[in-house]
């Protein structure tokens, strides 16, 4: 019911049937897709973006075969990815607003009867693609540079293996994002899953890493099944898997028209199911409840992998999928509300777990799950701009946070427990890590106006309040934002400021454990951290570029793609204001909002509330975890690493901190209700297989042996014995013949 009220007012589709040109931006784009313009062909050098990372994969595999023992794999990867990033940038600068495809080679081209499946190795370039590829290739280059130093203890085959998988990952991600059809998207989707598996299990001698890799792969399969069925259903229903054809299909446009007036009964159930199935795929890959459990465990992989794959790029594939397939989600009655609610639940649940963890990398992992929840909430609330903007800012600041934590982990021999580290920023050589970590924490918390994370998160939260019936989501997201600020600064106040203290972990990488000295990060790590921190801060400006028309630069990128649509509320209001002459383009948030909140424009009210919430969370963290003096903002009272004011509070909270620290026992619940029954069933099948099926087969194998056992003694080994039996047999035969002949003769 909420859905129909939500989608009732979408007015995009009504315009689609009218000629292009009457309406700007968003609908024009879809209409253009729908129109007779067809699709242009782009320059071939764009293929470099896809195939250079693949070349990196091949070269690194060759280095491994040749037994390379230098940093060559890292420089190869950084170089190739850098060129790919340059090509992406050129693609962005040369883009003139018309989507086009680039053909590499023919892949699937099957015809049977009236139908055909065409899915070429071709790439579909529009602004959504460009937006994603910009940060994928950019971050991949930076993180490869970081990894050149971070992985240096493993130089040799391991180093080659790491960068080989790294290149393959970027190639797969490029196929996923740039593919012009769903098959290529699926190839990339599985490819990134494979690389994720390979890299989580990078330390394959460590049982926990192997288990985490398997868990990630298996949980992702559940989502992948949904995606595969969704693609199948798209083909069955629309008869094509190519984006250009799919979005041009008249069928789809009729559905969107129906959805716009809230008449979902006119849309066949089959078409509505597509979005629900694709959604399952997105939940798996982007670690949404209930499939999020693999992501925290994925932190067993090397930190650059956590930063690139499990924070910045791969996990946003689900967001990309929904954004790319947005028209299909619009025509499904229940899909978007489910996406919104699942995102919200995930955001809250992961934040509560993150508050109670002690492992700083795990805190960041739960924070990633939580922030992905925000993105899904944004998608579900019809704010693809907010979701995409949050993807972008999150990619930068979360990669930054992971890499800063990784630097700490690397320097202190794998120590990640925030109770065993303190005042890291004040140690010699760690200043840059401390400052960049502060920048990352501020962005993640969303401190008002001075951080990019604030703008993107605010866009989603505000959207919840301007969407009728969704203010509950808005409140939950605000509470989550306070929690986010708390757990983020908890890490900062515990680890990076305060009295200097450190205990090494257990991964010495060949250092002498008895004379351990923390080693500060080198130039590569520091450079990457500084670049990412700068990028995070510069991203603020994106909110102001093109602010009036599209809500920031990201809005203009999204508006020019399949992810865009007319904001019903903005439109209806603008229509009311301007007497029906509205030309409002996609820009769901803040253009104009219906009603008021606390006597203010809801958007501005939310800026205030969310911003104050973030500051409140920060101050709470400072009070409970901050060190004494100015470092704890004169609120904290911590004097040693392992003790803080929170300890006493936690004791009085009963079992809650314990439950949260143990992730609300979700893994154990899954084990009890899913894994154990399945395992029991597997054992039953195993024994059935072994006893019943193998039994029958073995019986047929056993019978000849019994028979042979009876007749075997006749093979005595005595040559004369055989001869006697031959001669005797001949004699008997002759005798019989003789008798028959004589009888016959007698009768005649």
């Amino acid at each position, binding site marked *: 019911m909420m859905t129909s009220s939500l989608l009732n007012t979408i007015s995009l589709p009504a315009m689609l049937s009218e000629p292009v040109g009457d309406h700007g931006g968003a609908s024009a784009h879809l209409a253009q897709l729908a129109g007779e313009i067809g699709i242009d062909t782009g320059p071939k050098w764009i293929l470099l973006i896809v195939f250079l990372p693949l070349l990196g994969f091949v070269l690194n595999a060759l280095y491994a075969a040749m037994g390379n023992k230098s940093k060559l794999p890292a420089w190869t990867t950084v170089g190739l990815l850098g060129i790919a990033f340059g090509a992406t940038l050129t693609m962005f600068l040369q883009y003139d607003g018309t989507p086009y495809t680039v053909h590499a080679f023919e892949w699937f081209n099957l015809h049977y009867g009236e139908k055909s499946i065409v899915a070429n190795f071709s790439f579909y370039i529009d602004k959504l693609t460009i937006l994603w590829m910009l940060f994928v290739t950019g971050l991949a280059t930076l993180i490869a540079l970081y990894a050149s130093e971070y992985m240096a203890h493993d130089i040799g085959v391991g180093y080659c293996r790491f960068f080989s998988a790294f290149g393959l990952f970027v190639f797969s991600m490029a196929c996923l994002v740039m593919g012009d059809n769903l098959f290529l998207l699926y190839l990339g989707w599985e490819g990134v899953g494979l690389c994720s598996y390979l890299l989580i299990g990078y330390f394959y001698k460590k049982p926990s890493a192997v288990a985490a890799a398997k868990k990630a792969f298996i949980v992702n399969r559940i989502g992948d099944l949904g995606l595969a069925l969704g693609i199948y259903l798209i083909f069955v229903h629309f008869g094509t898997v190519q984006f250009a054809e799919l979005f041009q299909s008249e069928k789809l446009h009729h559905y969107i028209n129906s959805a716009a007036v809230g008449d979902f009964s006119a849309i066949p159930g089959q078409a509505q199911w597509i979005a629900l199935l694709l959604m399952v795929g997105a939940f798996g890959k982007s670690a949404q409840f209930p499939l999020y459990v693999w992501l925290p465990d994925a932190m067993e992989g090397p930190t650059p992998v956590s930063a690139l794959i499990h924070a910045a790029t791969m996990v946003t594939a689900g967001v990309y999928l929904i954004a790319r397939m947005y028209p299909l989600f619009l025509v499904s009655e229940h899909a978007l509300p489910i996406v919104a609610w699942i995102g919200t639940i995930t955001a809250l649940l992961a934040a509560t777990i993150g508050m109670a963890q002690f492992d700083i990398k795990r805190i960041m992992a739960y924070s990633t799950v939580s922030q992905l929840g925000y993105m899904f909430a944004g998608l579900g609330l019809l704010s693809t701009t907010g979701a995409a903007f949050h993807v972008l800012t999150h990619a930068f600041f979360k990669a930054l946070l992971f890499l800063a934590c990784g630097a700490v982990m690397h320097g202190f021999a794998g120590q990640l427990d925030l109770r065993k580290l303190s005042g890291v920023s004040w140690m010699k050589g760690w200043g840059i890590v401390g400052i960049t970590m502060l920048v990352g924490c501020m962005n993640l918390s969303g401190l008002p106006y001075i951080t990019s994370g604030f703008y993107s998160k605010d866009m989603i939260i505000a959207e919840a309040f301007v969407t009728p019936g969704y203010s509950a989501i808005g409140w939950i997201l605000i509470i989550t934002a306070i929690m986010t600020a708390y757990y983020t600064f908890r890490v900062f106040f515990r680890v990076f400021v305060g009295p200097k203290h450190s205990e090494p972990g257990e991964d010495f990488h060949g250092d002498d454990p008895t004379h351990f000295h923390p080693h500060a990060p080198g130039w590569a790590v520091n450079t990457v951290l500084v670049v990412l921190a700068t990028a995070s801060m510069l991203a603020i400006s994106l909110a102001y570029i093109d602010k009036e028309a599209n809500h920031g630069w990201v809005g203009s990128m999204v508006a020019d793609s399949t992810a865009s649509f007319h904001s019903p509320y903005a439109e209806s209001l603008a229509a009311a204001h301007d007497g029906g002459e509205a030309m409002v383009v996609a820009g769901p948030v803040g253009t104009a909002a219906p009603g008021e909140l606390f006597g203010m424009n809801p958007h501005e009210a939310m800026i205030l509330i969310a911003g104050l919430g973030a500051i409140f969370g920060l101050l709470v963290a400072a009070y409970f975890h901050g060190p004494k003096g100015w470092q704890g903002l004169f609120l904290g009272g911590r004097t040693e690493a392992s003790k803080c004011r929170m300890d006493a509070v936690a004791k009085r909270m009963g079992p809650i901190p314990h439950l949260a620290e143990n992730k609300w026992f979700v893994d154990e619940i899954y084990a009890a209700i899913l894994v154990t029954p399945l395992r029991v069933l597997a054992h039953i099948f195993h024994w059935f297989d072994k006893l019943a099926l193998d039994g029958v087969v073995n019986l047929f194998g056993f019978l000849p042996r019994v028979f042979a056992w009876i*007749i*075997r003694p*006749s093979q005595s*080994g*005595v*040559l*004369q014995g055989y*001869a006697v039996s031959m001669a005797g047999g001949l004699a008997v035969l002759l005798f019989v013949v003789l008798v028959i002949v004589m009888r016959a003769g007698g009768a005649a």
Partner: protein
Amino acid sequence: MMIRALESLQLAQLAFPSEMPDSVLAPYLFVSAAMFAIGLIGFLTRKNMIIMFLCTELMFQASGLALIAFGRHHLGSDGQTFVIFVLCVAAAEAAMALALVVLLFRHRESLSASAWKELNG
């Protein structure tokens, strides 16, 4: 008796002889049967593999003799044709069998067939 033998000789030398009577056939078959029996008994009683091999040759030739006799008896060329084949096979088989015997001897330093008794089921 003498005349009869002469007659049969003349008959055999004729280009298109008449059928050989049963009475002439009988001695051939008798000799053939005797040769076969001697060969068989030799094969069954002796353990020396070369002797056993010779006995099989004897049985071969017994059957060849019977075939020729029957062929002559029925005025057909099938019997003689068969014998040619038998001779070919026997020649090939002789080469094979003797080689085998040599190999077997090298393994056991013995020509006795009972040296290979462990090749049982």
